């Protein structure tokens, strides 16, 4: 049994497993739903996630300890992850293979030669780690932008799966929507199609995780190399070389991804995986100059204050970045969030969305609630997002912590923000049209939305009586719209009399409801007014938790007339609206 065949099996296994984890990330108990599937396993195995969060938080969160396994195996074996486990790597491998199938052997050898530009990935790695490493300046975790595991997780869960699932509806009953998915899609397909140019383009030139493995694997006990110096220099070993690591000459250990193709292709069996170094010699260190290293380190350090010039962590904080329940205070949140999209994937209501750059560059693809998308704001009894967050940027809270019950009664509920009524858009406030949808839908108990009752005379509602009985009033005007006042919200008042509810109307006849008759019958020729009973919504900001159900339900469907804004969120003391008493 050939080792390359085993490698392919391993790649297929892990890729399938990865896709399976994407599919099962739906809250539910069926075997194809979340259950106990370790959907974060790939993210946990990813040492860039672990090292990034160790740098920013000085802690290694729970299951991220899995990364230690990867790190140790890499130290001993070399960059095995790239060619054996990484689902993104396998995808590149496959597409690169398809792309170069038609090419001649010479062209293939040419394609897979080593290129100086392969050092770019080290520059990227140093840049991102520098952003995470200097707390005296400010730290931010941005590795997730290019780290292949968060990248493919995000791309599959937020782009590919919703597109495919639209036809089968396995992962969700309704279509899933993600804002700014186009950008994720564009980056994903660019990375994939670059393989047609050069196989494993992403792995060789960009992948910061690959760079990290390259550094970790420099003392590897076993490494690919020539076991004797007699070599006819046919270069066939480079025909399918995945890493572009020059096994024909002085092999570059940091670039070798252990695909074993060279060993397989060497007719003379000169290449083996061995403990001694390659007989012509090898290059262990990444091909990165001191100057490039210092430059990327310095620009990484300075990039953090640079991206924060917008003062989005200070007075100019972004009130539309409503974070999921359990999210840490913004600065700590940004030092943990990978932008992997697991919370957005699992959210049963689809309200968690990848953020844009309006809230600063760091906000890109971080979870933000958009109450206009999805089935109903943040569901009161759900804590799924924190349960799947691999780095605890969103803490795994319990329901009682979320709702402020039981032992959390004193602390109170977790507030995501506060709903504000836009009185210029709200139907009862701005247009005198009855509507209490937001109040009715407020899931809290007691409700955070209450109403103030007011009776307003409707436009052209001042009428002259032609004839009146106890139950019916005929008007001189014949301008009423048939049935308009029959909804139960309209009342008729005569001079000095009490308002009587209107049951029905024609163009010149108003019929009153029979249940009450202590008003007096208006005299002929007297003036009556048709009034509408309005219940105008008001927010009790001490109760509102910012779940966004009201905003979701508001019938003013464009720019909603009631909108949640992050003021009052519990995670940031600075955005609170009220003193706690």
């Amino acid at each position, binding site marked *: *049994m050939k080792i390359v065949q085993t490698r392919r099996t391993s790649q297929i296994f892990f890729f399938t497993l990865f896709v399976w984890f994407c599919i099962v990330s739906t809250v*539910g108990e069926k075997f194809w739903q979340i259950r106990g599937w370790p959907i974060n396993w790939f993210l946990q195995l990813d040492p860039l996630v672990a090292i990034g969060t160790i740098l920013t938080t000085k802690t290694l969160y729970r299951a991220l300890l899995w990364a230690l396994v990867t790190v140790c195996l890499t130290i001993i074996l070399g960059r095995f992850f790239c060619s054996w486990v990484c689902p993104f790597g396998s995808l590149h491998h496959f597409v690169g293979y398809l792309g170069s199938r038609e090419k001649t052997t010479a062209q293939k050898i040419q394609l897979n030669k080593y290129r100086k530009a392969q050092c770019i990935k080290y520059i990227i790695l140093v840049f991102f780690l520098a952003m995470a490493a200097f707390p005296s300046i400010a730290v931010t975790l941005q590795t997730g932008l290019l780290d292949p595991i968060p990248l493919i997780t995000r791309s599959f869960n937020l782009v590919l799966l919703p597109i495919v699932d639209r036809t089968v509806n396995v992962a969700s009953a309704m279509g899933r929507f993600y804002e700014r998915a186009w950008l994720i899609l564009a980056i994903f397909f660019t990375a994939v199609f670059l393989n047609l140019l050069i196989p494993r383009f992403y792995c060789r030139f960009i992948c910061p995780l690959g760079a990290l493995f390259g550094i970790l694997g420099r003392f590897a006990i076993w490494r690919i190399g020539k076991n004797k110096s007699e070599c006819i220099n046919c270069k066939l070993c480079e025909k399918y070389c995945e890493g572009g690591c020059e096994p024909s000459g002085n092999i570059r250990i940091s670039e070798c991804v252990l695909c074993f193709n060279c060993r397989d292709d060497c007719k003379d069996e000169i290449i083996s995986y061995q403990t001694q170094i390659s007989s012509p010699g090898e290059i262990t260190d990444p091909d990165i100059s001191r100057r490039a290293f210092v430059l990327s380190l310095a620009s990484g350090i300075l990039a953090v204050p640079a991206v924060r010039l917008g003062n989005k962590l200070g007075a100019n904080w972004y009130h539309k970045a409503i974070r999921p329940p359990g999210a840490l205070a913004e600065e700590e949140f940004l030092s943990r969030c990978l932008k992997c999209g697991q919370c957005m994937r699992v959210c049963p209501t689809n309200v968690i969305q990848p953020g844009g750059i309006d809230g600063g560059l760091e906000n890109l693809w971080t979870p933000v609630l958009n109450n206009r998308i999805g089935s109903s704001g943040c569901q*009161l009894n*759900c804590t799924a997002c924190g349960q799947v967050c691999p780095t605890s940027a969103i803490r795994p809270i319990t329901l009682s912590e979320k709702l402020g019950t039981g032992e959390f009664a004193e602390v109170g509920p977790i507030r995501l923000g506060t709903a504000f009524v836009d009185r210029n858009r709200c139907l009862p406030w701005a247009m005198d049209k009855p509507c209490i949808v937001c109040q009715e839908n407020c899931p809290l108990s007691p409700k955070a939305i209450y109403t103030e009752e007011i009776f307003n005379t409707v436009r052209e509602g001042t009428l002259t009586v032609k004839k009146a009985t106890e139950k019916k009033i005929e008007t001189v005007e014949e301008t009423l719209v048939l049935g308009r006042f029959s909804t139960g919200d309209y009342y008729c008042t005569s001079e000095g009399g009490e308002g009587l509810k209107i049951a029905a109307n024609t163009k010149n006849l108003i019929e009153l409801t029979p249940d009450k008759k202590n008003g007096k019958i208006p005299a002929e020729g007297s003036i009556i007014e048709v009034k509408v009973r309005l219940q105008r919504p008001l927010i009790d900001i001490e109760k509102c938790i910012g779940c966004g159900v009201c905003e979701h339900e508001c019938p003013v469907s464009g720019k909603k007339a009631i909108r949640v804004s992050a003021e009052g969120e519990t995670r940031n003391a600075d955005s609170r609206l009220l003193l706690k008493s």
Partner: protein
Amino acid sequence: MASAGRRAKVLESAISICLLALLFVTGVGIFIKQYNSDMSRFGIGTVTTVQPLQELQVISEEKPDLSSFVPAEFESLSETEVYQPVTLYEKINGKAPLYIEAGFEELSTKRFVDKNDESLWMELFVYDMGNVRNAFSVYSIQRRADADILSLFHTSFGYRTSNALYFVHSNYYVELVGSSESDELFKALIEVAQKIRSDLPVDDKTRIAELGFFPTENLVLESIKLYLANAFGFEGLTDTFTAKYNIEGETVTAFLSKRSEPKDAKMVVENYYNFLIDNGGVVKQAVNKVFEGKVMDFYGTTEIVFAVGQFVAGVHEAENQQAAEKAADILTNKLNNVMSNE
């Protein structure tokens, strides 16, 4: 050399097999892991994607267990829900103020379904109104006009419609609503009612004295209502009972309300009289009267108000003045009797 090559191949195969075994073990491990799930972590149990909003209910344990009232062939269809005054509108929405103004304390409600026929289900509403007067008030005000009186109770505080039972039991106002008009289901409702009446503890002060102060002659059965406040839109009329009388083919509404002192009663009469006059009432000459009080025309109906000892009494919105005065006379006589007996 050849043997070395063969050895290498064997080694390669062995390593491959080991690695494949490792993959297999990984797969098995993950498969086992997925059984180890605690869905409560997600806070939504078995719920999948779309789910109606769950209302927040406090399940209280010391409350009467509604299941114990239900016949054996019925099983729970929903959890017991308990509502307090602040949350009551979540269950009954706009009707909540009616209860809350009448002293509502707590509602326990639960649905049960027939094990053999799932179209047959019932919902129990047990409103704890604090005391029997409050319970009677919400019961009487809501009483359906076309109701059949429930003869199975000794008190008259119960009636049925085609699919439901409504009754007062001590401080509880109980509604038993069936899903259909089936006789079988109705029998079960009756059973529940009897069980509630025998099992739910009774408050001692279940008697409402005023009910006995209305003369029974010509009284329309089951027409007595209790308005705890704001009767006829007048704030001063609290704790007011009304009853319908059938006099000379006319339906007349008589009312009475007991005060602690005769002078209080007089004052209420005076205030109510002024209230009516202010709102457009016109004093009328009595035709033929025994009672000592005021007669008014109020937009074509007759209003009578008078005091008998501690009682404020009168007739409300009578179409016919003679019938109204007759009713007032009968009520005066009865109240005088009551006074002399006390």
